[in-house]
């Protein structure tokens, strides 16, 4: 019995030690693998997409070994805080709300959000400007929000949970719409196509990617959104630094990511990857 206990204890202890060494050695980057073209998985389950390729090249610039870890979107920030990985690259926009909990590198790419409906919807042909920036405000923005409030009244709008898109709909800027939240963008797309959602809100590229791959007649309507609740571009999410060893390492990591992004941008790597995956230059 004693030997049995000792064995179990030593196995557990060795797991702890191995886990720690492992953690110090590599930079682990968390991504969702379900938000094409930002990040997704191929048929064999391998992680692919803009951010996966960008992560590998940023690691080369930093001269560090990396490992890309898959994590469900709704647990992304908690998993970062619990040190399951050291950085997030998952199409996560830099917003004031998230910055209360974590910190971000400079942005590496920007996207606009847009509403999508199925062809033939009554929401098609809304009379709004083609794009609004919520940070700028002004009469154009107010008018567009008013049009949207009227058009979306009593409608069910679907979004992925814990996203800037959900934050925007919850903010009341477009009135009291019926917001339905899903774990993944895939599920939002499915329910938009089935007709359970009157409209859906996400990155415009997420819908065009879905329309292209599924052949469903999804159309974008209304203005493209940026600024305000939609944040300021997509950056690498990192734990806020501190005075202890790990905190110092996190602060160091933030610096090296910023430097790597600078270099990658200068070399045109980010633009090239963005054009390859988005079809246009979404880099910033």
């Amino acid at each position, binding site marked *: 019995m004693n030997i049995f206990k000792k064995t179990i204890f030593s196995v557990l202890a060795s797991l702890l030690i191995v886990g720690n060494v492992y953690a110090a050695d590599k930079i682990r980057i968390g991504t969702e693998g379900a938000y094409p073209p930002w990040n997704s998985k191929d048929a064999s389950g391998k992680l692919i997409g803009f951010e996966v390729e960008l992560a590998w090249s940023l690691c080369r610039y930093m001269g560090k070994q990396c490992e890309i870890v898959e994590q469900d979107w709704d647990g992304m920030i*908690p998993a970062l805080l619990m040190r399951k990985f050291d950085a997030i690259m998952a199409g996560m926009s830099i917003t004031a709300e998230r910055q209360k909990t974590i910190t971000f590198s400079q942005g590496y790419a920007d996207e606009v959000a847009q509403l999508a409906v199925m062809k033939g919807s009554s929401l098609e042909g809304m009379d709004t400007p083609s794009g609004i920036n919520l940070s700028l405000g002004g009469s154009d923005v107010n008018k567009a929000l008013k049009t949207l409030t009227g058009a979306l009244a009593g409608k069910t709008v679907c979004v992925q949970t814990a996203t800037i898109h959900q934050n925007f709909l919850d903010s009341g800027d477009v009135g009291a719409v019926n917001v339905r939240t899903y774990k993944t963008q895939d599920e939002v797309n499915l329910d938009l196509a089935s007709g359970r959602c009157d409209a859906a809100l996400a990155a415009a590229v997420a819908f065009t990617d879905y329309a292209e791959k599924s052949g469903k007649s999804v159309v974008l309507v209304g203005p493209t959104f940026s600024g305000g609740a939609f944040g300021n571009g997509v950056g690498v999410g990192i734990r806020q630094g501190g005075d202890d060893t790990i905190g110092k390492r996190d602060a160091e990591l933030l610096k090296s990511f910023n430097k790597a992004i600078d270099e990658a941008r200068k070399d045109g790597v980010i633009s090239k990857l963005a054009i390859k995956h988005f079809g246009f230059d979404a880099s910033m």
Partner: protein
Amino acid sequence: MDFELMINSLPKLLNATVITLKLLSLSLFFGLFIGFLFAVLRMNKNPIINKFAYGYSYVFRGTPLLVQIFIIYYGLGQVEYLRSTVLWVILKEPYWCAIIAFALNTGAYTSEILRSAFQTIKPGMIEAGKSLGISSKIIFYKIQIPIAIRQSLPAYGNEIILMLKGTSLASTVTLMDLTGVAKYIISTTFKPIEVFIVAGGIYLFMTFLVHNTIKYLERKFSY
């Protein structure tokens, strides 16, 4: 530990518990009907009816509840023909899709619980009824059913508890039940431990109530 968050999230979570209880009670209500029907079909001598009832319980006990919900919610939603029928009025709503999945699932388990309860009835009891000249219909209602209900109480109590925990899967089809609201709070506070502890505590308390009610009923109906 953020105790303030735990206290602040309690009212929201208790509010969401109402939806959880609604899902549970409606699923159990329909599930009991389905279970009873299929238990009777299982005991039918006709092999086709018998096999059909067995097939139903085999499929629904042999596949994960999550898969069943996904097939009913996302799967049926993909069938274009279905969307033009009157059935879509019900299947469009995540609430009813969840209840259909839960009821079919608990119905399968309930049918097995009731069937085995019926089979534990000693033939002597039925023979005693017959020897007194009681019709087999009355034997069924007055002897077999009451004994079967008492026999199935402990197992059915377990089934209620399993189903109570199973309702948490409703959050995967957008319903804001206890788990759904817990996840929503986490999505804005990024503090899963605190919120899930409170949500887990509420589940535990409900389980405690179900467990003790069943225990009380067992004592009351013991013979």
